[in-house]
Structures are given as C-alpha cells and as structure tokens.
C-alpha cells in the first residue's frame, strides 16, 4: 500500500512538473513579458525583479530559476496586486473557495445519490420523470443563470417575509449555503444520472435477487447490497469534481462576491499576472492529482475486489 502511494506520488510529481513546464513556456509564448506593463517601473525594482526571476537571462535559465523557486514552494510576489505574495493569495483564496466547495460537494454527492436512488427505484414512474426533468435543467442551464435567479429569489423572499437572509457572501456560514447549492447543482445533476444508471444495473443483478429470497425488506437491500455496489462510478467522478469545485468558480464567486481562488485565477489571466497564473495553475494541478489518488485509495475500501497497489 505505502509502496503504491509512493509510486503514485512520484508519478503525480511528474504530472505536476509537466503542468508547470507547459504553463511556463505557454506564458512565455504569448506576446509581452512580465515587465512590460502600462505602469512605469523604477529601474531599481526592475533590477530587483531581474535578480529574482532572471528576466534578462535566456529562457532556459529563467526556466530553471522558475523550477527551483517552484520546488521550494515559492511562487513569488504578485505583479498586479501590490505587496501580496502569491502564496498568501492562494492560501486566502483557497480557504474561502474550499469552504464553499466542500459544502457544494456535500450537496452534490448526497443530492446525487439520493435523487439517483429515487429515480432508479421509481423507474418509469412520475418521480423518475420529474427528477430527470430537473436533472436535464441542471446539466444544461449555465450556473450564472441559476445564481442570478437564486439571488433574485432570496431578495424576493426577504421582502415578502421580512427576512434578512444574506444574498451575497458576507463571511458567515449561512451566506455560503445558496452559493454552494448553485455551485454544486451541475455536479449533482450529473451524479444523479450516473447513480441512476449504475443502480438500475445493480437492482437487476443476481445478488439482489438472493437478498430478496432471504427475506430482506427493500430498505435493508438498498442499504447493505445495492448502495455499495452502485456507488463506485459516483466516487470516480467525485475526485476530479472535488478538485475543480473546491478550487473555486469564477462565476459563482463573482456573483455572490466571495473572495475565492477562482476569482483570483481569472483576474490573474486577465491582467497577465505572471506569477499569479503560474502559482494558481500549479496549485490546481497538484490538488487534482492528489484528489485522483485519494479516490483510487477509497476504491479499495468500497470494493474489496480492488486491491490497491497489490500486484500478483
């Protein structure tokens, strides 16, 4: 097991290395360099930057400097946000995005499993049709539409019922609920479909028939026989979904004014903030690799047939 994890971490390291390399050369392939901004820069600060990043040196030397800094976990200072370390920006942004993201994932996972199970149990009956209509909406309608309508709805409710439910992020837990729901909606819809088809397959399997023959009721059958055997595809999707959702969504964070990582990332790209783009990209890549590894390890616990890291 530990050998397997080590091997996976090693290959993950190479993946991240590759991501960093591609980002680096991509950044340098676009016109303009980090120093050619509109603002006039003093000679002194230019020199300091050159000293740190080697902008006056050939590309390959810059690359090695970048790799060395990255390996030490140092992404440098932001070029556009005065006096801010990229590491601090990521730390702050990620802590906000992760709070929102974990909530969203919880909504998506539990919602997806619940709705998926209901649609499979009531296959081709009205609950199935009703839920599947919402699922198609959830998959096809962009999140900013839902976000705007959700905000409108909160404001409307507040007016009608004299409530003060926050319609945008104010740092409180309650204010995260609606954005998290909207953020998780697409994933929830997708997971519902996945859970439905996977459960339908399991419902018709021989071992469920055996369980019925033993005299179990449908809840006992679902709990101890159907759920565990149908949940594997959901877990597969959940890994990358955790990575992409917890690292922030620009749209949701902008609409609900939550200072998360997604917003920083997009702003970095818009403003051609060299260090911020590098930092966020490498961070996102590493996190994704880690989550996929976690999912592979969780497999082994859910399905005993999958022996993680045991070669025969």
């Amino acid at each position: 097991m530990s050998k397997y994890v080590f091997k996976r971490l090693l290959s993950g390291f190479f993946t991240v290395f590759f991501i960093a390399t591609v980002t680096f050369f991509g950044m340098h392939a676009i016109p303009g360099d980090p120093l050619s901004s509109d603002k006039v820069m003093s000679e002194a600060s230019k020199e300091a930057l050159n000293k740190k990043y080697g902008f006056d040196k050939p590309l390959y030397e810059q690359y090695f400097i970048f790799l060395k800094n990255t390996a030490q976990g140092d992404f440098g200072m932001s070029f556009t946000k005065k006096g801010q370390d990229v590491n601090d920006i990521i730390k702050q942004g990620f802590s906000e995005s992760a709070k929102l993201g974990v909530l969203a994932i919880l909504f998506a996972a539990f919602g997806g499993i619940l709705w998926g199970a209901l649609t499979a149990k009531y296959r081709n009956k009205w609950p199935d049709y009703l839920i599947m209509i919402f699922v198609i909406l959830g998959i096809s309608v962009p999140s900013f539409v839902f976000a705007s309508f959700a905000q409108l709805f909160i404001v409307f409710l507040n007016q009608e019922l004299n409530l003060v439910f926050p319609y945008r992020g104010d740092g409180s837990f309650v204010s995260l609920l609606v954005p998290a729901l909207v953020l998780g909606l697409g994933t929830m819809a997708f997971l519902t479909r996945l859970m439905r088809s996977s459960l339908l397959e399991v419902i018709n399997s021989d071992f469920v028939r055996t369980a019925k023959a033993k005299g179990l009721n449908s809840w006992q059958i679902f709990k101890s026989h159907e759920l565990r055997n149908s949940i594997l595809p959901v877990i597969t999707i959940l890994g990358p979904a955790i990575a992409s959702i917890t690292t922030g969504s620009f749209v949701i964070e902008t609409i609900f004014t939550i200072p998360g990582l997604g917003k920083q990332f997009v702003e970095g790209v818009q403003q051609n903030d060299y260090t911020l783009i590098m930092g966020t990209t490498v961070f996102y890549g590493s996190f994704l690799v880690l989550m996929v590894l976690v999912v592979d390890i969780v497999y082994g616990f859910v399905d005993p047939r999958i022996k993680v890291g045991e070669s025969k």
Partner: protein
Amino acid sequence: MAEKVLDIQNLKVEFDTHGGIVQAVRGVSYSVEKGKTLAVVGESGCGKSVTVQSIMGLIPKPPGRVTQGKALLNGVDLLSLSDKESRQYRGRDIGMIFQDAMSSLNPTMTVGEQIAETLQIHKGMSKQDALKKAVNLLDLTRIPEAHKRIKQYPFEFSGGMLQRAMIAMSIACKPQVLIADEPTTALDVTVQDQVLELMKDLQREEGMAIILITHDLGVVAKMADDVAVMYAGEIVESGTVDEVFYKSAHPYTLGLKSAMPSMERNSHTGLVSIDGTPPDLFNPPQGCAYTARCPAAMKLCRSRKVEIFSSESGHRSQCWLHHKEAPVSVTAPINRFSGAEV
C-alpha cells in the same frame, strides 16, 4: 402418506412484454412432502424457474403477475399474503439457492456477513452471535477453516465453495423447504457430485423438503423421490422417479430420455434431439402444447385441451393417449393408464 409441506395449485403467471403477454406458467400444480425431494425437469424457458420464483415473490412486478393459483406452505397461501407478511417466510421457512453462486452473492460483503444477515433478520440474533453461527454452518457444509473463510469475500472462493456457502446461507434458519434452482449447472462433474451429496446429507439431518430444478436427468436419478416434467408452462407428467423413468407416460418424457447421451449407443449416430421448437407462449396452442413435435399426435390433440390422466398409484400424465378410446399407437411406446381421468 406424508404431509405436504409445499403445495402449489393451478399456478398461472404472465409477463407483459413489448410483443404482448407471455403466458409463462399455465396452470402448474405440484407438491413436495417432508423430507422428500421433488425434481422439476424441462427444457429452457418451460417455466420451471418462473414457477418457484413467483412463489418466492422474486419475479419483477410489473411486468410479471400471478393471475391464478395458490402456493400453500403448511396450509398458508403465500401468494395471498402482503409483501411484508410473505417476507417472514422467505429465507426462514423456504430457503433458495441459485445456479450461479458467484453472481448470486454480494461481491462487496464478506461471506460470513451474508450468512449472518439471514439469522439477524429472522432470528433477531446479534451480529456476533450470527457470525458464530455462520462458522458452524460453513463447518456443516464442509468448508475447511470456516472461521477464516467467513471473513473472506466471494471472489476469494472457488465455484464449488461458493455453492456450499450459498447452501449454508439458505439453510441458516432451518427451512422446511429448500428450493434449488439448477444448483449444479455451473459446476464441473466432481464438484457437482459433492454438492449434491451435501444436499442429501443435510436433508437427512434436517428433514427438509427439496425442490430441485434441473435439466440434467442424471441429477434427477441421483437425488429425486418424485419428478415433475414441465413443458411450455405446464406439468405434462409427474410421479415417482421410477414411474417417470421406467414407465414414462408422456411422449415428451420419452423424447427427453432418448435425447440423453448414452454410453451404449453407437457414437456414430450422434446425439438424438427432439425435432422442432417449443410453442410460442404469446399465443399457446388450444390443444396439447407438444402436438407439433409429438410423433404420436392425433387430430384431437391439436384442438382439444388435454385432460390429466392418472394411474392408481398417482402417476399422472397430460396426454390423450391415455383416453380409453385412443388408438393403440406404436410410435409412442408410453405406459398406458387404464383411462382414469382426473
């Protein structure tokens, strides 16, 4: 005469399909006595599995439905009970084992837990007690190192071991009836023999009745006390194993017997088969379902529903040749009854 533990009376089962309604079981009656084994034989699709699955409440509804009939377990009609009530009997009074043990066990649950589950729900045992009992049950089915085995998953068992574990699971609550739906079809011959021996021994010890569904006449000869031959959703012949084998009273039974590979027969002639195919159960024939394939078919067979004829000993056959006015046929050397209608 011993008491009937399970008595199925005139059972009819239908399935709705896109092509119409399939009449899978068309009035089946059979019963099994305490401590005895009834073998139900017939070719694929003749309704032998559907019959037992419908009394266990295992056929999916819809599209399936039981339109008529009773299944009396010690006088209680299982088919008239609510789902909640019939669950009490399933697994406790009737145990069931299936053909493919590998796919019939939950791959993500240890074998011990799956055996214990039955005891937990029917006997209200705690998990620890039930697991201890599971070890005993595996011992009983002659699985070595049972205390280790209960912690393993189905994929760590061999096919024969799995079928034993399956048997252990189905007899956990000491059922009165054990239904075995082709229990040895997926096993090779030596393992098949061991599993059948095991079932026989358990029957002797526990005194349970067994309904054995198979299409292997060798298995029937080894295991059964009584035999029911099914064709196109009906019982065409039933009786003791000797009666059905040596005094066959239906042309279909003769056909089945002659289709058995034989050591003596010249290997150059190849395997014998019954010509034709079973009738379309969307629209079953008015008369005898076997008419089209029967070498002794008469005009009457095509148009008139066959009555059941019976000998004094209770050997029954659903064939017009037993009628007292039927001509003496040479093409079907069946054992004629003296024309007693039921």
